[in-house]
């Protein structure tokens, strides 16, 4: 604070500007002394600002960090600008330095004069001038930055798993093994899901004291965020219950497409047409496949790729399942002739060829066609040589495509998760976060994510469990993003633009006050809402237009 001539008290800022030589990386190209002199020569541009400007060898080194820390303390800096490398490399390093002093880390700013100046601009003079411009922009900007304070939150380390199939059970067991409490919510009356065989996990899950199983129950509501979800459950008999958990794993599985959808396949209820998954289940339970009249079929056709064209993707696992089933039928009842009708065989992985060999060896007849249609019990096989053949079978098993489960849409809406082009839950990022979703704390396992094998489903389930275990450590607190958006209530007119564009569902309407309200714990600070607001009633902290304009103005001088 300083007294001015008029008797008014004004704030004085002390801005420290530290230029990192980065060995020859920066100092080899940029004339740092000139940059410092240029900036100092203009220091009267800033009202009530004192500049401290220095250069140093490697600021990110141990001694460098100590130097910076001492400088902040000794000079009583109110703001800090570090001209060095990319914020992606060392933003957090220098924020850490600030945190060891009284300087709020959000009153500091890194300027990237390495990747954006010294390494890419050929002419040293131009690079020097550019570096000065960038630094001036940052000095100007840092003066408009505000202190932000991280508010760590207590977390609930428990998890809810929606879906009691292979993926759901695997996730529950993985979590339980680390002594997490798990709420396993299954829509149907029994565990097991749609994988067609009794999974060995089922017994373990039932016996697990850490796993609470809710059968014939669905999730009816959810509010909250990673570490703090409140989930409403509704059971088939209409009972409501509310549970709290820190994470949600969606393992709701998938459905099969209707084989008759394409119009090329038609049959009636009395026909002996059973989709692959049903046949698998029957074989698993009864040890054989009988016709409805109790007799054994003499001929069975397994038809691959039913629904592939309609869905627009290969489900990837049905060729293998179909061949395995065909071989199993042959093994269990050698009198039955089994024919596999396929167009392209998709047998990925190390085990794929084994499956094919096994089927061949067990005497399965393999017919490749250009296309197949079915009417009643008669298949019309369009062979590769252009001829076509009609053949009748006692039983027909179409391998229908894997499609999203019926609940996918309603759950996606409830949890604000986008769906991919085929209607499955969409992951947060294909490469970097395949098990997560855009809603933090919600993960996807198994075929809810798209067609995959049981093995892959279980891998995803373990990945989800791993995410929960590492992100929600009991006793630790999580720090929500602080560079989030706030609503300036005085300017908000409640038009709802922000609400509509928010991917995270972080904004809701307060109709009584006629304004929108941000749930800061859910907001991730992308700024999409800001750009949708014509009123400027939103402010994305640390990335306000006022701050960005400082950079723009300096660049345009």
């Amino acid at each position, binding site marked *: 604070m300083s007294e001015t001539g008029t008797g008014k008290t004004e704030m004085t800022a002390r801005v420290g500007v530290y230029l990192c030589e980065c060995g020859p990386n920066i100092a080899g190209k940029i004339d740092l002394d000139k940059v410092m002199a240029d900036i100092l020569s203009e220091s009267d541009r800033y009202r009530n600002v004192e500049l401290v400007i220095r250069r140093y060898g490697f600021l990110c080194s141990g001694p460098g960090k100590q130097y910076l820390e001492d400088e902040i303390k000794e000079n009583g800096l109110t703001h800090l600008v570090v001209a060095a490398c*990319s*914020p*992606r*490399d060392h933003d957090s390093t220098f924020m850490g330095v600030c945190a060891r002093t009284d300087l709020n880390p959000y009153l500091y700013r890194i300027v*990237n004069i*390495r*990747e*954006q100046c010294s*390494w*890419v*601009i*050929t*002419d040293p003079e*131009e*690079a020097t*001038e*550019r570096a000065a*411009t*960038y630094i001036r*922009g940052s000095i100007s900007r840092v003066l408009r930055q505000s202190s932000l304070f991280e508010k760590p939150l207590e977390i609930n380390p428990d998890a809810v798993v929606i879906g009691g199939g292979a993926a759901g059970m695997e996730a529950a067991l993985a979590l339980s093994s680390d002594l997490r409490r798990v709420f396993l919510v299954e829509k149907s009356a029994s565990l097991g899901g749609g994988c067609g065989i009794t999974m060995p996990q089922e017994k373990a899950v039932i016996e697990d004291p850490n796993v609470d199983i809710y059968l014939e129950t669905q999730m009816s509501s959810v509010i909250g965020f990673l570490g703090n979800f409140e989930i409403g459950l509704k059971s088939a008999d209409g009972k409501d219950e509310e549970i709290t958990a820190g994470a949600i794993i969606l393992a709701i599985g998938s459905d099969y497409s209707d084989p008759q959808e394409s119009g090329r396949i038609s049959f009636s209820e009395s026909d002996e047409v059973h989709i692959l998954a049903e046949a698998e289940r029957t074989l698993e339970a009864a040890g054989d496949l009988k016709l409805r009249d109790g007799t054994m079929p003499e001929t069975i056709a397994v038809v691959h790729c039913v629904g592939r064209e309609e869905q627009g993707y290969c489900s990837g696992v049905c060729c293998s399942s179909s061949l395995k089933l065909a071989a199993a039928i042959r093994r269990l009842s050698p009198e039955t002739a089994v024919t596999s009708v396929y167009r392209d065989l998709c047998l990925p992985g190390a085990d794929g060829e084994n499956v094919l060999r096994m089927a061949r060896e067990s005497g399965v007849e393999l017919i490749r066609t250009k296309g197949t249609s079915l009417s009643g019990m008669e298949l019309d096989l369009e062979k590769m040589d252009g001829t076509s053949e009609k053949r009748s079978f006692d039983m027909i098993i179409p391998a229908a495509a894997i499609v999203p489960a019926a609940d996918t849409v309603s759950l996606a809406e409830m949890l604000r998760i*986008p769906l991919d082009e085929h209607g499955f839950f*969409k992951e*947060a*990022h*294909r490469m970097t976060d395949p098990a997560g979703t*855009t809603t933090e704390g919600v993960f996807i396992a198994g075929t809810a994510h798209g067609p995959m094998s049981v093995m892959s489903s279980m891998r995803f389930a373990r990945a989800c469990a791993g995410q929960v275990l590492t992100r929600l450590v009991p006793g630790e607190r999580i720090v929500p993003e602080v*560079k989030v958006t706030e609503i300036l209530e005085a300017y908000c007119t409640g038009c709802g633009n922000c609400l509509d*564009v928010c*991917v*995270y569902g972080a904004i809701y309407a307060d109709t009584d006050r006629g304004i929108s309200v941000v749930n800061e714990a859910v907001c*991730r*600070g*992308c*700024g*999409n809402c*800001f*750009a*949708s*607001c014509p009123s*400027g009633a939103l402010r*994305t902290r640390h*990335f306000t*237009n006022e701050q*960005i*304009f400082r*950079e*723009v*103005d300096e*660049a*345009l001088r």
Partner: protein
Amino acid sequence: MPDFHPRIIGFLCNWCTYAAADLAGSSKLELPPEFTVIRVMCSSRIDHNLILSTFYRGADGILVAGCHPGDCHYGEGNYYARRRFALLKKVMETLDLEPERLELRWVSAAEGNRYAEVVNEFTDRIRKLGPSPIRTSTRL
């Protein structure tokens, strides 16, 4: 205009294009000194006012760049950005305000080379266009 040094602002999304700029940097690719990078978290953060103000404050060209559609760190931000951009472009086109001075590009974190190409190409375009009439008018 041999002495014309355009002032170009690039608003880059933190997750993809800024990372691509870093990659271009560490690959020591040559980039024009007239191009100023401003980092934002998402291309969807860029509002019309920011772009227009930047033009009215004297930019000769503005490049907005972010993740490819479908790859947005925040899920769907760049789809909204694309619509806003289309509107702004339409307004500039309708008023004949040299819409070619504004460009939207998708550059992923892995595309350091592409980043350099995009920036160099855009800078060349602006160099050829000459100073923006908005920057030179004394009536604004």
